[in-house]
């Protein structure tokens, strides 16, 4: 069980993001940004977590827990018009926020004076022809921002320019709920009809280069995250609480759909440096840790072996796991034959270990972010949870 701290912050949190680590820095990031929503006056806040070294002998299981965290404290804050619907760090001290008023704002964190000021703003880039329209999401890559909203429009914004570089007016018939970059020139959106669309910035066409979808009911997809090292693998979370895994290389449909939460999955994140670990948070008030690191404990050959066994109806769950054990060590040298755990076959999926990180259900959890050993969650219960995950492999 993770070591969890709850901080009450007097506003509902809609987005939370760690500051990116400085390059070549070995230290974990200790500053993060949060954005509030659904309040009279919303704001963007910066926080700092103090970490104290602990002698390794004092902890039960040394490993990554070589420190104790204190409650995060506010560094500075800035008012924000409308709900903060998207929040991303851009470099070390710039934070981009999107608003339910359709506006995109870049805040600068002045580290000397510890203040937060507006550095650039694009007003109402999302709109219903003059009327207000919420922007729902944004993604950042270097100095390019892409954003989308309930108007189904996609804006591609270059920092420094006064107006968006390019606007795809009819990117989607329904609402776009989340957006993320795949590569420098490619981004992917998910919408309210269960579709995943890939756009390429190099083409002049406004049409997506590829469209994938969940078949059946038109269940909205709410969030998406890309595998940190393998750009063709993405995970999505749906309004029905389902976690979807997609291989963008071949299929038009998801590789797997796993029924998970009992409410909308608001955010899904791969661990940036330990991508065999995935985290989801949901309207149902739960945060889940999906640990896929055990899937590859068995070489692929063995996995197919298990398939055959279940084909004969021989083993139940326990049996499946015990059979390959005998072969495990002999085959462990076959490193190249390992599949990515998230694309593994159904049987291997039984080995994904799922843990709920909160002992008690909280109010809806809107957002999470993970870096190093620390997971952050923001909730409608005006709480920020800071969880120490220990060492992940």
């Amino acid at each position, binding site marked *: 069980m993770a070591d969890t701290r709850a901080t009450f912050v007097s506003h509902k949190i809609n987005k939370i993001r760690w500051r990116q680590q400085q390059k070549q820095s070995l230290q974990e990031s200790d500053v993060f940004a949060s954005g509030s929503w*659904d309040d009279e006056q919303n704001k963007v806040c910066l926080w700092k977590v103090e970490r104290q070294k602990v002698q390794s002998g004092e902890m039960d299981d040394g490993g990554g827990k070589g420190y104790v965290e204190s409650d995060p404290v506010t560094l500075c804050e800035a008012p924000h018009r409308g709900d903060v619907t998207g929040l991303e760090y851009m470099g070390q001290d710039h934070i981009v926020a999107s608003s339910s008023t359709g506006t995109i704002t870049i805040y600068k964190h002045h580290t000397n004076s510890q203040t937060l000021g507006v550095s650039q703003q694009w007003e109402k880039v999302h709109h219903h022809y003059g009327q207000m329209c919420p922007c729902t999401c944004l993604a950042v890559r270097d100095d390019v921002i892409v954003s989308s909203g309930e*108007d189904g429009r996609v804006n591609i914004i270059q920092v420094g320019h006064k107006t968006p570089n390019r606007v795809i007016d009819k990117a989607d*018939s329904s609402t776009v709920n989340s957006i993320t970059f795949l590569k420098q020139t490619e981004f992917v959106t998910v919408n309210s009809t269960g579709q995943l669309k890939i756009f390429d910035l190099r083409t002049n066409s406004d049409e997506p280069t590829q*469209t994938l979808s969940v*078949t059946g*009911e038109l269940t909205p997809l709410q969030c998406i995250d890309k595998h940190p090292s393998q750009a063709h693998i993405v995970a999505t979370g749906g309004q029905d609480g389902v976690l979807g895994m997609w291989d963008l290389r071949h299929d038009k449909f998801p590789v797997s759909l796993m029924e998970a939460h009992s409410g909308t999955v608001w955010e899904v994140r791969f661990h940036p440096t330990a991508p065999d670990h995935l985290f989801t948070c949901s309207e149902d008030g739960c945060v889940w840790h999906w640990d896929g690191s055990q899937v590859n404990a068995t070489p692929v050959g063995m996995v197919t072996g298990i398939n055959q066994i279940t084909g004969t109806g021989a083993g139940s769950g326990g049996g499946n796991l015990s059979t390959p054990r005998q072969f495990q060590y002999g085959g462990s040298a076959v490193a190249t034959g390992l599949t990515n755990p998230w694309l593994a076959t159904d049987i291997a999926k039984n080995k994904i270990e799922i843990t709920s990180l909160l002992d008690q259900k909280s109010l809806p959890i809107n957002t999470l972010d993970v870096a190093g050993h620390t997971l952050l969650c923001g909730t409608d*219960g005006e709480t920020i949870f800071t969880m120490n995950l220990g060492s992940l492999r």
Partner: protein
Amino acid sequence: MAEREREPHFCAINDPSCSQGLQAVWGCGNQFFVFPGKKAILLNERRPLLMKEETIREVKWDMDLHRPVLRKLVNESHNVFTCLQEQAKKTSGAALHPHIIRSSKQYRASLKAYSLELKILADSTIDEEQKQDFLDHLQLLEMAELIWGLCEILFIDSPAGGLVIAPLLEWLRFHFQTGEQMFLEIIREEQPEHHPLYWDTIYRLVLQGQAEHVRRLLSLHSSKHSKAFSSMDELLKKMPQHTQLFRGHSIAEFDMKWRHWRDECERRLEEGEFSSYGNLETIGKILTGNDEVFSEFRDLCETWYHMLVSKLLYQNPTIKGFDLQYHIQVCLDEYRSNTRIGELDNILLSALEYDIHQVIKDSSAVFSNWWFVAHLTDLLQHCGQLDSHKLQFGSNLREFLLLEYATSLMSHKSLWIVGVSYLDHCPEFGRKYLEHFMENISIDSEKKAQKLLHICQERNLAEQAKSICKVMGRRHMQHKRLGAALTWFLKSKDVALSTVIAERFLFEYSEKGSFSNLDLIDNLGPSMLLSNRLTFLGKYREFHKLYEEKEFQAAGQLLLSLLQAKLAPKQFWVTLLVDAIPLLEAQEVIFSSAQTFDLMHCLEELMREFKDIDVREKEKLALLRLALTRNLSRAIVTEGTVRRT
């Protein structure tokens, strides 16, 4: 706040149209709307416009619970509350009791935590008015904690054997910390006995039963080796401690010990062991429970309830909770002269008299928010302390207060979600309240709409869920976002409005000759079965796709089946039949003779029903008729050929 309620707030409205008079209607929670008018109007009644320009003004007042610091209290206590309700579902009676006590302590802990935070805030604020404001709140929180602490001892914790002095002493030490603070200050002095408050502090500590602290201070006195000092030290050391009661000593045993000890105190006092030190003699008098000495220390006790506990500690240490009330009057009389009895005193009095309802009633009046009474009453209800009481209206007292508290939360832009959770725990009226609130919460974004929808779906509020979808869909329709609108109507399975959207799409096609929102229409899947019109739209679009992919055979069959199944609206038949022309003129024969007859039948039916088709369409249909006959002849020939070979 009680203090503020006494002095009314004035808010002038400078509007000539209001000079005639003012009317008001209630809004949700802490707000109402004022507008010019003389006569009161009834709900739903239309009111004639009085003047050209009239404005409706929204009047809101500040809720202390909406302050940042107190919002933390709201959220933290919500967690405690839900946790207890979960436990209450699983267990009851004695098994639940430890949970109730733990919850009570958690509530008090958060009160204490946020008092501290307010104190820090107040200390760091320069603005006088704001500072005062913080201090006002601080005072209320401290008062809440004081009352809660007493109620916990008397009604919730019910200590072993009904002996209350030990927990009451702890309660005192928690709230009257001057003695403790002075103690810490004095022991750091070089010559403690010369500290001006040296003896006062000792008395304070004696009054709170802190024998160990007193011994420590006495040991710092320069004449500590004198006979009188060591005699006093011995007495204090021997003083029976209440903690022994929990270690298996019976009450009678403890009582006997205490009597022995007091006899010894009296003996030493009478023998004049302390006569050379007046201060020690005074301590001795306290230890023997001398009435006069307590009157003398009126100021050190500060309040009547402090004196009550101190006095009973030395006069009647094994008193039971129910007997406390018989000793109150004497203590009250001591303080009668300098202060009048305040609200706090009244509440504490009622508590000591075991009049729970009076405590709740008075507390509701003193605290402007319902936080305190709602949570306390919930605990008391779980303890079974409120079973005897029936309300003349509504459900029970617990539910009544929870509803009030939830309502005050629902009126806040952001805290409403906490309110929902409280309403869930009101078995009788919670649902009705929630239904009303759900219909009135403003929806600013799809995300919020989804959250509201989830709340409705979890609780089977089908009608409200439908209405949320309708609102969202309509809003998108207004913004000409038909695709997005359709997703909402599909969500609520709204046949009528999905049909409207499908018709709009078809209309758009017949106007422009092409479809918009293709990404949605192409992926409707099984959801197109919701309405006939939608099915037709989906199928018709499929026809186009087949046609584009040059799958003429399949396209032809689909077209025919659309006409035969009567899925298509009659107005659209012309378009469909015209779409058939290229298929009829295709190189290979697509429609068999029988199928061609079917098409002809449709055409005739159309001509019969729509006499006044405009000229251009008539031309097209004439063309169709020609194509049909040509196709028929070709079909008959090919069919004949096939038969012969």
